């Protein structure tokens, strides 16, 4: 068993995630198929392309069923970054309507500023995390409202009980979620300096 598996499905930020986890000293297996997935304790799914493209790619690699199985039945720790979190939802509405992994009942939608103060899109840059819950992911990040780097135009909507932080952009949106062994972050910890490294370090050191 390798400690951390990072799924390489052509996502633009794969290298950055790999570099950051490697810097933290973890053993890494680059996951490219279902049998790789069985050999790792923890799974990280990076992501910076569209929802539909990502699902299609995972499908082509034959990873959909095994991913759901490893997370739901083997209880492997999972961290989804950006689109890697968004595809946990039931559906996504980026360039059409697409089915997600449906591990959370929820949707991925575009920022909608109607009746609110309009903001520029993509939401790009460093934003502060608010309303964050006591999560294992944030252990040791003891700054009030720590900043993380975001680059996206879509965000998730899901049940409040699983939301563990938000950020403000025209309105409060979900910045991270957590349910048992499943974690998701909308921001890019691999690009978020010390706070990001700390968060990744927290994840790779979790005990299943």
């Amino acid at each position: 068993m390798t400690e951390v598996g990072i799924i390489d499905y052509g996502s633009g930020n794969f290298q950055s995630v790999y570099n950051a986890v490697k810097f933290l000293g973890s053993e890494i297996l680059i996951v490219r198929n279902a049998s790789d997935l069985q050999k790792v304790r923890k799974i990280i799914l990076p992501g910076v392309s569209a929802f539909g493209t990502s699902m299609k790619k995972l499908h082509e690699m034959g990873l959909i069923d095994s991913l759901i199985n490893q997370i739901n039945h083997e209880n492997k720790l999972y961290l989804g970054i950006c689109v890697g979190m968004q595809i946990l939802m039931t559906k996504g509405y980026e360039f059409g309507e697409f089915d997600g992994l449906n591990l959370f009942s929820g949707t991925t939608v575009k920022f909608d500023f109607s009746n609110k103060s309009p903001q520029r899109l993509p939401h790009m840059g460093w934003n502060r995390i608010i309303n964050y819950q006591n999560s294992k992911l944030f252990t040791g990040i003891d700054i009030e409202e720590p900043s993380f780097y975001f680059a996206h135009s879509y965000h998730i909507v899901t049940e409040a009980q699983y939301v563990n932080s938000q950020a403000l952009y025209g309105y409060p949106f979900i910045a991270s979620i957590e349910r048992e062994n499943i974690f998701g972050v909308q921001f890019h910890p691999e690009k978020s300096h010390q706070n990001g490294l700390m968060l990744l370090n927290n994840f790779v050191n979790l005990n299943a």
Partner: protein
Amino acid sequence: MITKRIIPCLDIREGRVVKGTNFVNLRDAGSAVELAQRYYEEGADELVFLDITATEEKRKTLLELVKQVAAVLRIPFTVGGGISEIKDIEMLLKAGADKVSLNSSIVKNPELITQAAKRFGSQAVVAAIDTKRIGDQIKIFVKGGKEETDRIGLPWCKEVVERGAGEILLTSMDHDGTKSGFDIEFLSQVTENVSVPVIASGGAGSKEHFAEVFLQAKVDAALAAGIFHFQELNIGELKNYLQSQSISVRV
């Protein structure tokens, strides 16, 4: 609240950082990786690398540099200079760049913006636009400012956004290297008329200039080179100053 970004820009020639005035008179400013590391530690929010050699044999040097930088920096960085094909973009992103900046190639072939945005997402595509006042018009220049085009400032900014660019990096050639402040007037026009984030570039000479461009032109980020390279202004000090002016920054 999203914070305003401070972005040092490194003009690269054969792996070294160079900086000129009004796009000419280059002088050496040190090793790219060392400088990148220094800015990272000082609190830069992002970095931009512009390869001004951009010939075929130098391409490999640039990819090597991108790999080295990506291995040590945990902040986003953009790479530009001589990128004309999807294949170039793919190699740079694979090497660890987060975004690419496209300039001359998109004036010649605007369709490249759309192709790149579809393939890699708008967040990875920065349209770099170099402007100069000619009479009462803002004209677009390409090839490192050497060649005038028929493109006019604001319509071109709107077009790159419609085609899928996720950000605009707007450089005023008239202000570049002069340390006389940013082109507030044109930057304000652009931020009022486009929906994507705008990065101001050209003319930073003091910390007051940064406050001015954030407060008056309402840009999302400000980029500078020389003032940081030669240690006239430290990024940490700049951010403390901006905070004292009630401008939200990441500290």
